[in-house]
């Protein structure tokens, strides 16, 4: 029974011998005290087993552990060890589907189709299924998404996938450990230009254009910069890139405030629908399979409310699994279009999700993989994002790309929870991919970075 005794009690002996020291082995001791049942319920005992294992690993010699505990007191020791060792999380891993510590959650989102999985999980009841009561809070822009997460007004949030990296690093905000639980969507963005530029399809003609992106730390910003730079345009010198919250992009395009935007859907399609713009290129033609938005949680939640975290994870993954299937796309368009969520005409959402759409130039295009919802948070994606942050001067200091990627993108958890709902997860967490025909290898990020002619002079 030694595994069930409190390892933070200096009077308890772990390892050889018995707790009271009067018997040669623990087995003998247990025989002697068999009529004294261990106190506590199953959960406490479960926790004890884990704590004991950790303490045994930390202090292989039992004497050292006892001296340590006697010296600092057991509660201090528990706090100290917990601070670098997430007992709660391990506990949840060991017992899993426990009741959520916190049931009422507020999740922030921006009204775009990127957030489809986390939005549809509400009307389709995936949160309720996991015992959670979730309120989805429509938020006005990405800066507010960031601030409301930092202020703890929201418990979890829809993020642009570079944002948790930036927040964890403390670039562009106060540093706070933020994690990417899943990617929300891949592809599904586009460069939309004002209708008056129908004859300017070559980016070389775009000098002096004003473009909008949703946020500095967005895939949109990095993809737009990458795209124009590949065509010999310096995004910092030849064009102007300004931050405009996605919902305001079409209104700005109509007003002629901007010449175009690399923005999230449904606003590309909405610009076509309102006949103010046309789709120049889908983002899938820049990098097929690129991540866009993410589902993020603060590190504190994983440690303090592991069961809530697990329940939330399963709910969002269940939604992603459903969203991946093209058969379900029309239904999804129907449930996320009402005013409480995206507040858009249903046909616009449907064109985005099914990939059968009007392009604003008079053609009906059929691109089934225009938007997809692969939730797996590849580490290689995070490394690419970090190289681009470095390339454009958002990241000044040298960082260990892989270490940060592995810290922020929770691949292990994703695999675990994907397995729980029978989703297939890839075995590797790094993959090679091509961005506009150029291969990216996450093991040589510096070489990749050095290969670009256009970059911000550091």
């Amino acid at each position, binding site marked *: 029974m030694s595994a069930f005794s409190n390892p933070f009690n200096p009077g308890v002996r772990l390892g050889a011998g018995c707790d009271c020291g009067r018997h040669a082995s623990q087995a003998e001791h247990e025989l002697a005290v068999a009529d004294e049942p261990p106190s506590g319920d199953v959960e406490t005992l479960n926790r004890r087993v884990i704590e004991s294992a950790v303490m045994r690993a930390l202090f292989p010699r039992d004497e050292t552990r006892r001296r340590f505990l006697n010296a600092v007191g057991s509660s201090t020791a528990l706090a100290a060890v917990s601070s670098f060792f997430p007992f709660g999380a391990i506990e949840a891993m060991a017992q899993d589907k426990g009741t959520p510590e916190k049931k009422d959650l507020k999740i922030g989102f921006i009204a775009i189709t990127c957030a489809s999985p986390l939005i549809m999980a509400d009307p389709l009841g995936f949160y309720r299924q996991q015992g959670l009561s979730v309120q989805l809070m429509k938020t006005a822009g990405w800066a*507010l998404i960031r601030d409301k997460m930092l202020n703890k007004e929201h418990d979890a949030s829809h993020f642009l996938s570079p944002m948790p990296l930036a927040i964890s690093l403390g670039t562009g905000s106060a540093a706070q450990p933020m994690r990417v639980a899943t990617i929300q969507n891949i592809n599904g963005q586009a460069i939309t230009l004002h209708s008056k530029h129908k004859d300017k399809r070559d980016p070389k003609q775009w000098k002096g254009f004003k473009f909008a992106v949703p946020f500095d730390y967005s895939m949109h910003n990095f993809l737009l910069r990458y795209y124009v730079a590949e065509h010999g345009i310096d995004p910092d010198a030849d064009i102007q890139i300004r931050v405009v919250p996605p919902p305001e992009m079409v209104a700005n395009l109509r007003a002629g405030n901007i010449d175009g935007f690399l923005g999230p859907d449904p606003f590309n399609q909405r610009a076509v629908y309102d006949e103010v713009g046309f789709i120049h290129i889908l983002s899938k033609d820049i990098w097929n399979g690129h991540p866009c938005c993410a589902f993020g949680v603060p590190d504190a939640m994983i440690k303090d409310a592991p069961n809530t975290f697990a329940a939330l994870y399963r709910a969002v993954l269940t939604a992603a699994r459903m969203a991946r299937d093209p058969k379900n796309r029309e239904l999804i368009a129907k449930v996320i279009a009402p005013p409480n969520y995206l507040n858009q005409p249903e*046909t616009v959402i449907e064109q985005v999700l099914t990939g059968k759409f009007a392009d604003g130039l008079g053609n009906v295009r059929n691109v089934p993989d225009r938007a997809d919802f692969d939730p797996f948070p590849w580490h290689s994606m995070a490394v690419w994002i970090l190289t681009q942050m470095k390339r454009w001067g958002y990241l000044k200091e040298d960082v260990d790309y892989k270490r940060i990627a592995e810290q922020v993108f929770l691949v292990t958890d994703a695999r675990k929870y994907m397995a729980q709902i029978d989703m297939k997860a890839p075995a590797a967490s790094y993959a090679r991919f091509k961005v506009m025909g150029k291969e990216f290898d996450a093991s040589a990020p510096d070489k990749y970075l050095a290969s670009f002619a256009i970059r911000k002079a550091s």
Partner: protein
Amino acid sequence: MSLGWLKSALLSLLFFVVLVGAWHLATLPKGERAAATDEYARLLGKGAKKSEGFPTPAQIGETIVKNLSEPFYDRGPNDKGIGIQLAHSLARVGLGYLLAIVLAVPLGFVIGMSPLVYRALDPFIQVLKPISPLAWMPIALYTIKDSSISGVFVIFICSVWPMLINTAYGVAAVRSDWLNVAKTLEVKPLRRAFQVILPAAAPTILTGMRISMGIAWLVIVAAEMLVGGTGIGYFVWNEWNNLNLANVIFAILTIGVVGMALDLAIGRLQKLVTYVE
């Protein structure tokens, strides 16, 4: 009197009819709308009920009826009726405005009664007064760490200055004869403040409060558009995102009517305390 009133009412009505008539003519659909024959047109929503261009007066009327017939519906955190949105805005304005009164009126009294304090605080007031209240928003969000309290703070900071300055001015401008009489009668300071200075300065103070209310109601819309969540400003922002101009115009009309009602209410108060010398 009654005839003049009738005439002005008729003229108002005439203006209204001319305005709506011009609007109606300007927004008449140009030509017959092509029915959706091919798929491309169908994807663009042609032929379906799609709002194109600026809404007509008839569409606005329809929107007003629709919104007012169900003002208190609540379909989740992001879709609430106009009544609920207005209540949120009014609550924010009320709270920020009350806080401003609590601070500005006593402080204005002190400033007005002491020329020394007046001169000492004047530079601060002059620098802080012209700052747009929305410029405080990022700082408020960062320090207060709560978006809805930040909204209240912005209302507070924009309504505090007119009240402060008007109270100080009103108190300082009380006729010295009255103060001298009070002095001759050996009136105690507290009684002098409440029974001589306050009634004398009340019209000026109320003017400051009326200006403040006007500004506060202007600012709440902008603040809510920025922070989102609830309120009439958020309603405008949300409908702008959907490019639903009919709803935006409806919201603008509502803002105007409510602003007028607030102004009238304080105007009534002002009449109560006005005196003729």
